[in-house]
């Protein structure tokens, strides 16, 4: 199992939940992984230790990917450690932060959600694409919320993910001629801390029950899809938003 051997991968928000699973999976497939984190310092260290223990290569880098200065620092650290070439860029960092209705949120909350979920994707790509060449792959984490408008109080989250899906399509056009593929994936209900924090247990049970596969997905299953989209196996896929939701929602 080494379909990403020798490749360099950046995973934003790569130390927790789905991001953690992605970092570990890409490393397992042979990639050198830059595990970006912001709040999760100890988790980032554990992620890198776990990868190294399995014989892989990884490095943790703290950066707030909604800040352009921090993105530049992340880029500089990546170049210093793994050279001036990046093959795989996974924009996974993001969050819901809180459930707030139209009358409950303010401008600061709007900016927070849009910056972390969307601005980060835009400027991470702007910074890293010059290091990416033919055959490289960009994978953005969108969401089922981008398709269906999201659950209660998550309108800004859903809209930010809608922007991610559209930006993904636009960039697949702009970067396709350079041989860079750009895809997104739209996870449905995945069993993670995200839902531990923001979704009530009875809602999760209910959603799992109406999901055709009758369960939540796992972070590892999302990571498997990311690894596929990162690999040369998917060399003719670009501009796609791939649903991974156990059949719960149709787009």
């Amino acid at each position, binding site marked *: 199992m080494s379909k990403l051997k020798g490749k360099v991968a950046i995973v934003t928000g790569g130390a927790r939940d789905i991001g953690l699973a992605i970092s570990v999976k890409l490393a397992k497939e042979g990639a050198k992984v830059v595990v970006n984190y912001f709040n999760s310092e100890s988790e980032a260290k554990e992620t890198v230790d776990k990868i190294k223990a399995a014989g892989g290569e990884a490095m943790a880098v703290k950066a707030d990917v909604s800040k352009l200065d921090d993105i530049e620092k992340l880029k500089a650290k990546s170049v210093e450690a793994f050279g001036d070439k990046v093959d795989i860029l996974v924009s996974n960092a993001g969050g819901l932060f809180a459930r707030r209705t139209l009358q409950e949120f303010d401008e600061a909350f709007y900016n927070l959600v849009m910056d972390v979920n969307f601005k980060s994707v835009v400027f991470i790509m702007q910074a890293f694409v010059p290091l990416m060449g033919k055959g490289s792959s960009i994978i953005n984490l969108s969401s089922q919320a981008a398709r269906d408008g999201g659950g209660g109080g998550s309108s800004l989250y859903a809209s930010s993910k809608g922007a991610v899906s559209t930006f993904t*399509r636009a960039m*697949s*056009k702009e970067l*396709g*001629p350079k*041989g860079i*593929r750009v895809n997104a994936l739209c996870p449905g209900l995945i069993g993670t801390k995200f839902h531990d924090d923001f979704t009530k247990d009875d809602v999760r049970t209910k959603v799992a029950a109406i999901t*055709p*596969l*009758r369960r939540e*997905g*796992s972070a590892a*299953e*999302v990571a*498997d*899809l990311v*690894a*596929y989209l990162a690999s040369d*196996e*998917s*060399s*003719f*896929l*670009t*501009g*796609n938003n*791939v*649903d*991974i*939701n*156990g*059949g719960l929602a*149709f787009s």
Partner: protein
Amino acid sequence: MNKNKDKVAVVTGATGGIGFAVAKRLGEDGYTVVLNGIEDEAGAKRVEELAAEGIAAEYYGFDVTKDEQVTSNITKIGEKYGRIDVLVNNAGGLGGRSRFEEMTTDFYRFVMALNLDSVFFASRAAIPFLKKGDHPSIINYTSNAGWTAGGPGAGIYGTSKAGVHALTRALAKDLAEYGIRVNAVSPGTIDTPFHAQIKATKPEVFASWANSIMLGRLGQPEDVASVVSFLASKDASFITAETIQIGGGQALGI
């Protein structure tokens, strides 16, 4: 290491360009491959080609538009191996071009049978054997034409593929309780013998097609095969009722 040892894949329409690439890929992945077609000579040759690469393969000649032929053959295959792990409903086609005012009922029925009935017949017959498979799944083929309703004279083709799109989702819902996943692929313009004539006679037209595709080239049968291979694998275990476009960015947002 062969993680797919003992697994059985059935690929309909497997003597042609894409179908054969899919059969070959699944064979390389370790499956025993059952190829279907209607040209028995070509089928025998394809089996030989696979055997030369060490792939266990068999050919069953039957017409996917005929309920009885499909049901009896799929049942025979399932009973022989005791399982079917992957059913790839690859058979299909344009069938010709016809505008509605001159379209015969026979033509209508033929195109619908070739693209839509065939998926129903084969899937229904395979269910008892898919239930005995490991991470079993069905993979269907839809098309951009399912959304755009097809080019000139291809309205019924488009309609049949829209049917496959809905049938994929309906099967996914219905079969999920058995752990059977059902997905579709939607290939864009793929470089197959289907386009050989235009490639030879109008190379400039053929080349211009690639320019309309973001990745600057036509798809290869292997591009479709690799997506089918992924959807069939355990790595796609939470993906069902999904359609994946394989167009190099050819048709976004549909």
